[in-house]
């Protein structure tokens, strides 16, 4: 199995005044290509920091982070931006759609950053929205949509450029249980369809049932690893 995401003795320490807060203590893990994996933990367990480290949003205090064979922790801001553009999709808890853009424009935004021509990217974005069941909402703005619909737009945006790795940070955190199920189903479907690696951070054990492998995080360390088959 090819490794897509690898962590070697990753450690992240924050300084709050004189006090040191260890968010990620010493974590090593590796996620294979096409694997759907879940980081489960309570609030304050360090799971979000772990995700930030993997996505290159934060630098580790120690250790290595390797995505698709590249040392993410060694990259400069500019390199990281380009790397994210090519390799990483992101689903946020609070959707984070651009309020002034329509659903279609929001989904096509990552393609815009890549310089895909207007016609092509609109076509791809429309297809994605169709796939997430929002074919009739292309011209709607985020304010005109429900939370579930917004999150589906967010998912379409994360997957539209077919990135090898998609990170989802509490994707169902703001949704009711029924919508959560729909959203999770959508993400899995998409990831499986193109052999994309999906990393989900959640505090909800119910969500973790969907993953191939579940890492339970406690106080900055991996407590248990559970494999679902």
């Amino acid at each position: 199995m090819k490794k897509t995401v690898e962590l070697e003795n990753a450690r992240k320490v924050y300084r709050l005044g004189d006090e040191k807060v260890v968010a990620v203590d010493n974590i090593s893990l590796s996620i294979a290509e096409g694997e759907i994996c879940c980081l489960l933990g309570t609030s304050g367990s360090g799971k979000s920091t772990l995700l930030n480290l993997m996505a290159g949003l934060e630098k580790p205090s120690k250790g290595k982070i390797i995505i698709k064979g590249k040392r993410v922790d060694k990259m400069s801001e500019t390199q990281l931006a380009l790397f994210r553009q090519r390799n990483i999709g992101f689903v946020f808890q609070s959707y984070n759609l651009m309020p002034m853009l329509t659903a279609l424009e929001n989904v096509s935004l990552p393609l815009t950053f890549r310089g895909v021509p207007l016609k092509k990217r609109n076509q791809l974005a429309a297809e994605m929205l169709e796939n997430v069941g929002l074919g009739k909402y292309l011209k709607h703005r985020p304010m005109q949509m429900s939370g579930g619909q917004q999150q589906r737009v967010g998912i379409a945006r994360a997957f539209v450029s077919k990135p090898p790795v998609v990170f989802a940070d509490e994707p169902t955190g703001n949704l009711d249980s029924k919508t959560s199920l729909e959203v999770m189903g959508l993400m899995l479907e998409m990831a499986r369809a193109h052999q994309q690696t999906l990393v989900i951070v959640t505090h909800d054990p119910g969500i973790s049932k969907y993953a191939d492998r579940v890492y339970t995080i406690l106080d900055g360390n991996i407590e248990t690893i559970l494999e679902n088959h």
Partner: protein
Amino acid sequence: MNNRDLLLMGLGNLFRRKTRTVLTVLGVVIGTCSIVVMLSLGIAMDRGFQEQLSYMGDLTIIDVNNYGYYDGGMGSGGQQIKLDDQSVIQFQKIPRVTAVMPVRSIYMKMAAGRYVGYVNVIGIDPEVMEPFGFSVEDGRLLQASDRDTIVFGKSVAYDFYNPRMQRNYYYGMNRDNPPPVDVLSAKMVMTTDMQYGETRNRWQDDTDSTPPKVYDVRGVGILEESNSEKDYSAYMNRSSLEKIMEEERRNNRNDRSRNDQSQFERVRVKVDNIEDVESVQSAIQALGYQTFSLTDILNSMKETSRMIQGILGGIGAVSLLVAAIGITNTMVMSIYERTREIGVMKVIGAQLTDIKKLFLIEAGLIGFSGGVVGVCFSYLISVGLNHIGAGFMGPGSTSGMSVIPLQLALMAIAFSTLIGIVSGYSPARRAMKLSALEAIRND
């Protein structure tokens, strides 16, 4: 991200915050307006000077005068340089000189029938008349073969009067009536005797001396009105005039003013174009002559107006500076508001340069639109000023109080855009450096 998308996104962001955008643009409008209008006043002043001067004479002519030039301060002992045929040849050799016109003149009395008039007669070489801008309204210019012929300036004929009548002529003021003398057809004479034709007082007449000779002359042309010194003189072939002067000198030994016949009173030098006047003038000065040209005046006037323009422009610049601060402020505010948005953009794949460009474009657009609107307003203000100022500047002036050349308008737009971009630069850098992490905070 391609530039078109960036531009559209920038526009979208500006439209999203209409009030703030409009207010910031308004600042730039005021700034641009004040600079453009201020400069337009200065430019109009410049044009006015040039126009005034061109009424006074040709700007491409340098006068070399025979005032007796002393090389003061150089210690060479005040040697006087003669202005003679030799000098004319020297001047002709200077590059960019198209014609040289040595001038002699004599003040004469002319008579035609009952009418007499005082006329300044200038001796001129017929072949340089054209390069020096002489052109006739009626008749013809002088020719090399002419001897006793005269070409009159437009105003000369109006100066004739009938000495037996009550003196009620106006110096060329009353142009509604035809002049008292038709100089082209009348049989005319001229003389250096200033009493000629006047009602004489026989008893006081000095009968010992022979009265000065009376010469027959014939008018062949009237010059076009030029509103310059040309209108007030009569022109004669130089060789003929020199002969007359020589004769007068022999008859009247008391004439002290023309003790050296080889020297000219002045030599006029015509230059290719205005730009070359200065270099030719300094070349002549280097030969040791005293020169004068209207360009001298023009230059000093220009210097004055440049100073005034600088002051006016400076006042305008202050308001544009304020506008620039306004742009920076708006962009900084915008960044605070959009911190999260910027972070999200970074996370989902925006390049750092894209973010920087986006903000620069927004700031540039503010500057650009402010510049465009400001220039439009400036044209309106300019029209208004010219309307108000029309009476104040006098009817002869065509340029008015305020002139906005196209270059100024374009420069103003380019400059305000540049100001926008410069003001947006530091906020744009700040936006670029914002942490992408901000986006993921769930607050």
